[in-house]
């Protein structure tokens, strides 16, 4: 069975004053039905831009090249009308910032039903019913009453759930969640993750989770893709990524993640240095300057993404124990 979403050689560039920024370079990825892919990376690693490009939501100075097919249909740089038939209906996106993701002048109920009326052509009334249904699934307290409220009257957690409800309304095949839990407190974060996990199990919905939190990826994902400076540096199953990471960046990222049993006396492990300037990428591996295992070759040549073992790829010259 072909993958639901397939992305070949996707690159994203931004024209800025003083040159171009290669935000995403040569990304290949595939998401099958019912699969959950985690995209890990720090801020500015291109993980969000990669999926904004797929959705056709790049800002005006950005351009995408390569190929993206969704359900067998080419959607990269497709005309807006074609995209509007897919966006919100077959592919839904959950944004990071629940505080500003809902338009302040419309009641929650209207924002929800609008999407259904637009895509499904259903009546206002059945749209309202379906909205209530979704909010109830999300364990939204007092949904009937809150449908009449404006976003500013809801808490951050409730707003985030409205955003997720917006994504779920039309029963999409793919949900792209861009840091869906970053703005939430820990308890609601857990609820949202649990819900997404349940959704994946019950329906054949594919999920892409963009995050910088290893914990989130561990909770939900089948496969993980690690990005650094716009490139995929490692990809593989979640178990392999955690147990035998092949790229020093993945190892460092994992070490920087604090567990619940972290020793409060100990310094938090960090990755020294800063992410490179995307306008002036070094000739070699972008991570080499911060890498504790770098060898001279790392600074001259860029390692390609190569197969390490079954279903696992990494872009590094240094051999790691398997």
């Amino acid at each position, binding site marked *: 069975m072909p993958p639901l979403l397939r992305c070949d050689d996707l690159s994203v560039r931004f024209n800025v004053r003083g040159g171009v920024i290669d935000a995403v370079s040569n990304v290949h990825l595939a998401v099958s039905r019912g699969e959950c892919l985690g995209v890990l990376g720090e801020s500015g690693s291109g993980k969000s831009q990669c999926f904004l490009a797929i959705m056709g939501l790049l800002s005006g100075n950005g351009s995408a090249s390569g190929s993206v097919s969704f359900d067998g249909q080419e959607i990269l740089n497709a005309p807006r009308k074609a995209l509007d038939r897919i966006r*919100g209906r077959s592919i839904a996106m959950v944004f990071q910032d629940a505080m500003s993701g809902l338009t302040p002048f419309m009641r929650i109920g209207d924002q929800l039903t609008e999407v259904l009326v*637009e895509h499904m052509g259903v009546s206002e009334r059945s749209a309202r019913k379906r909205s209530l249904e979704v909010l109830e699934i999300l364990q939204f307290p007092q949904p009937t009453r809150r449908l009449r409220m404006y976003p500013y009257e809801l808490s951050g957690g409730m707003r985030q759930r409205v955003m997720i409800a917006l994504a779920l309304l039309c029963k999409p095949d793919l949900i792209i969640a861009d840091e869906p839990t970053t703005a939430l407190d820990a308890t609601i974060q857990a609820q949202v993750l649990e819900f997404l996990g349940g959704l994946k199990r019950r329906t054949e919905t594919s999920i892409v989770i963009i995050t910088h939190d290893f914990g989130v990826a561990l909770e939900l994902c089948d496969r993980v893709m690690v990005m650094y400076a716009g490139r995929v540096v490692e990809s593989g199953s979640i178990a392999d990524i955690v147990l035998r990471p092949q790229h020093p960046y993945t190892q460092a990222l994992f070490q920087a993640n604090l567990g619940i049993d972290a020793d409060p006396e100990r310094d938090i492990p960090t990755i020294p240095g800063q992410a490179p300037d995307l306008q002036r990428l070094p000739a070699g591996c972008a991570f080499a300057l911060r890498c504790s295992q770098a060898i001279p070759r790392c600074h001259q040549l860029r390692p390609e993404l190569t197969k390490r073992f079954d279903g696992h790829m990494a872009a590094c010259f240094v051999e790691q124990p398997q």
Partner: protein
Amino acid sequence: MAAESSSANRLGTSIWRDAIYRFSVNRAAMLSFWIIIILTGMAIVIPIWGPHTLDAVDWDRILIPPTFENQHWFGTDANGRDMFVRTMYGARISLTIGVLTTLVALIIGVTYGAIAGYFGGRVDAVMMRMIDVLYAVPTLFLVIILVSAFGNNFLLIFISIGAVEWMTLARIVRGQALAIRQKEYMEAARALGLPASRILMQYILPNVIGPVVVYVTLLIPINIIVESYLSFLGLGVQEPFTSWGRLIAQGAAEMEAAPWLLLIPAAFLTLTMFCFNFMGDGLRDALDPKNR
């Protein structure tokens, strides 16, 4: 504290209801609001049921100062016509022109600005440069050309004023739209596959309405003034009809002999300006998102 708990108790309170509440506790704005309402009511009623008619000449009482005699409360003009009725009739014309011109400016300006701001980029650049060029032409000059080209028609006067005053509104709306375009909910709307027309109507317009409403209350007095100096120049309303501008012009001619002919309409014009400006201030405070 009290305000906080009361706003929490109000169920599903809309931003507008909140704004109305904040406006209603602003004394200056509320007073201004009622003055405008009363003035509007009088402007409608007095010319119909007033003690005199607009062009009735009282041959025995020409150019008399304000008096109770024969109900000439504001006196009479050089033709013996009652100033009270004439001032109220002037209010009728001035307020109507103020509101209608603003409406014309509103429709053109908001549409133009929202389109430029929403589409941005080249569309925006071209549309805004056109405004810059039009801006460079003096307003009065343009209106005079329009009025002398199309003649002295009541309808044409406010269309031409409105057609000149829309540019600032377009700029305000465009600026707001540009700012809103960057908001995440705009991206979310696009990610939900909503068409551009819907985004424009439901996402952009409601968000620009605050500043627009405020500017409108400031534009109404500006347009009343524009009409009044057009009338002052003899390009506005024609005899026997009158507006505040015309009354002031006529009053100015007789200033030394009969100062009330100038002072009364001028006082009404000033009062109206003040009221609209106070209302604009009140609305700005009421709709300011920072207070929310």
